[in-house]
Each structure stands twice: as C-alpha cells, then as structure tokens.
C-alpha cells in the first residue's frame, strides 16, 4: 500500500477518494463486519445515507442522515446494495469533475424523480464492465447538452451535419473518462474488472437494456436547463 501511495505521489496523481475507501472497507470486512460498523461507514457520507434510506423506505423520504437513519437503512438493505450506492457516489463526483475539467460545464445533481423522462432519442454512450464487478453504464445527453459539450472543446455550439461525428467522439471520450475513472476505483477496491470500448448511438431511454438481476441507479445532472442522465446498472450478486 505504501509503495502504491509513493507511486501516486511520484506522478502527482490524486489519492483515492474517501468513498472508495468506504467500498474497500465494506468489501474487505464483508464476513466479519457488524451492522453497527456498516452503519457508521454509511452515516459518514450524508448523500450515501440518504440514498440507502430512500431504497430501504421508499414511501418515507424523511431522512436526516443520522446514525439512527443509517442503522435503520442498513438493517433493510443488503451489503452489496450499499456497495453499489457507494459506487454511485463515486460516479456522481466523477461526472461533475469530468464535465467541469474537459468542457468547462458546471453540472448540478438533481433529483431523478423531479426530472421528466423523455421518449425522444438522445445521444447515449454505453460501456460495460466485466470481472469481479459486473455492470453497465449508460450516459444520456440531451441534444443541447451534447452540442454544448462539443462547443466546450471546439468553440462552436452549433455543429453542422458534417461535424456530428465529432460530437459523438466528444461524448464518447467523456463517457470513456468517467467509466475509466470508476473502473480504476473498482480495481483499487479489489474489484478488478475490464471495460469494453464505449459505444455511442442515438437511442430512446426506454430502449436501454438492463441486464437481468442488476441493481439500477439513476443520476440526473442539470446545467442551464440541459440534462444528462446517468444509469448505473450493477449485478449485486457478483462481487
């Protein structure tokens, strides 16, 4: 571990984030960890605690993210689901950082329940990961957002038909960065997995394929009325 930290310092790479450390703790101690210890880990992250509570008590959204709330949620939600929720938090932060750094776009997380589903076709990037963790990520960009992402790189928010391949390339690279970062976190948490090269196409959200038995978490991000939906699907039985 010390050698790994030294290498990260040598190349000025950011240390692994706290959420990844939580995943590691949950997984490494899966057989011996007490409910109280799990609750403490979950309660240390307010957003994570709220998500776990919402899954445990879908009809009662009143969560104050206290240790008691965490305990109540942990009592009902399995350890693997908590791991997936923690991965969701990592994904959430990575999406925001990637848009900001690569395209100068500030995304704000929004409540998926408040964001209307659309039947329109949108540019969608899809990446699967396989190994000790198995799942799939879909990132859906509404047209105004994909054009803005393109504009953030090429300086023009109105791509022509001839430039549409560059819009797809830009969306594909953002998806690649976000999923690559998640995969790196998974590997460092002991969940070695490999990624399939991202596929980008226009599709309706309803046509996204959810592999059987996968836990499905949806994250929504907004910027000036433009929307990005991120669907994280992970098989909770294959850690």
């Amino acid at each position, binding site marked *: 571990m010390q*050698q*790994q930290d030294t*290498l*990260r310092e*040598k*190349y000025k*790479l*950011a240390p692994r984030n706290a959420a990844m450390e939580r995943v590691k703790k949950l997984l490494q101690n899966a057989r011996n960890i007490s409910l109280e210890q799990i609750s403490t880990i979950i309660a240390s992250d307010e957003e994570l605690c709220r998500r776990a509570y919402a899954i445990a008590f879908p009809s009662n959204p009143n969560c104050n993210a206290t240790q008691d709330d965490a305990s109540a949620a942990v009592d009902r939600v399995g350890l693997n689901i908590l791991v997936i929720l923690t991965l969701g938090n990592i994904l959430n932060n990575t999406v925001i*950082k*990637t848009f*900001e*750094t*690569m395209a100068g776009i500030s995304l704000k997380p929004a409540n998926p329940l408040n964001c209307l589903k659309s039947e329109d076709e949108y540019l969608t990037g899809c990446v699967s990961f396989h190994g000790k963790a198995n799942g799939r990520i879909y990132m859906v960009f509404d047209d105004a957002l994909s054009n803005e992402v393109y504009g953030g*790189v*090429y300086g023009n928010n109105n791509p022509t038909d001839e430039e549409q391949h*560059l819009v797809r*390339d*830009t969306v*594909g*690279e953002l998806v*690649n*960065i*976000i*999923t*690559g*970062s998640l*995969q*790196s*976190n998974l*590997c*460092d948490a002991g969940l*070695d997995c490999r*990624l399939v*090269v991202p596929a980008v196409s226009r599709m309706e959200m309803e046509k996204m394929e959810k592999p059987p038995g996968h836990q499905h978490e949806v994250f929504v991000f907004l910027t000036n009325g433009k929307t990005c939906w991120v669907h994280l699907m992970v098989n909770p039985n294959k850690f």
Partner: protein
Amino acid sequence: MKYKILTADDSKMVRVIVGRTFGPFNCEILEAGSGSEALEVISRESPDLVILDITMPDMTGLEVLKTIRENQVTAGIPVIMLTAESANKTVAEADSLNVSGYIAKPFKPEQLLEQVKSILNLEPA
C-alpha cells in the same frame, strides 16, 4: 529546436486539446488514432516525446509502450501516459516500463504542459 510530439489517442477531442496546448510553442504535433498507428508514426518520424492513451481499439497503450521499450531505436523516447485508467496496478505497470509522466483524465492542459516542459525545453513559436 523544433520538437516532434506524438499524441496517440483514439479520441479526436483529446488530440485537439493536446494540439492546442502546444500550439504556442515551436513544436510539431503528430497524431495517431490507434496503437498500431502510433507505432508506425514512431518508426517513421522518431518523435522526441510520446503522449499515450491506454484504452485504444487495437492495442492498449501499455502494449505500445512495451513495444517502444523493446526496440533499441525507440527505447529511449520519453513517454507520458494520458489516460482515464489510473488504478494502482496500471500505474505500477507503466512505471516499470519507465514512463516519464502519468496524467489521469480528466486533465487540465496546464498539467500536461508542466510535465512536457520538465522533459523538453519548449520555446515559443
């Protein structure tokens, strides 16, 4: 001196950002969109520095790096990894192949410029 810098990445977006970063300097930017194309350009152009992605369709960046190091003619070329893959194992593998720098995407052009300037004496164009 006009340096040759090769950027090997399957994303045009990244190649454009890299090209723009070094636009103000007296260097020539070469591009490759795949691992095999990178090896072709390296063999033909003998670049002074390679900026290398890992996830590419035909060969991974680590396979390209290994091939560069195994060839006596190219073994000494400085390589900076510019990739979304930053798992400890991957960084260790690149380190064992003597990389000069490792930048995790998402990245800021200034990070790249700083690392390249520590290797090449870039001058304004």
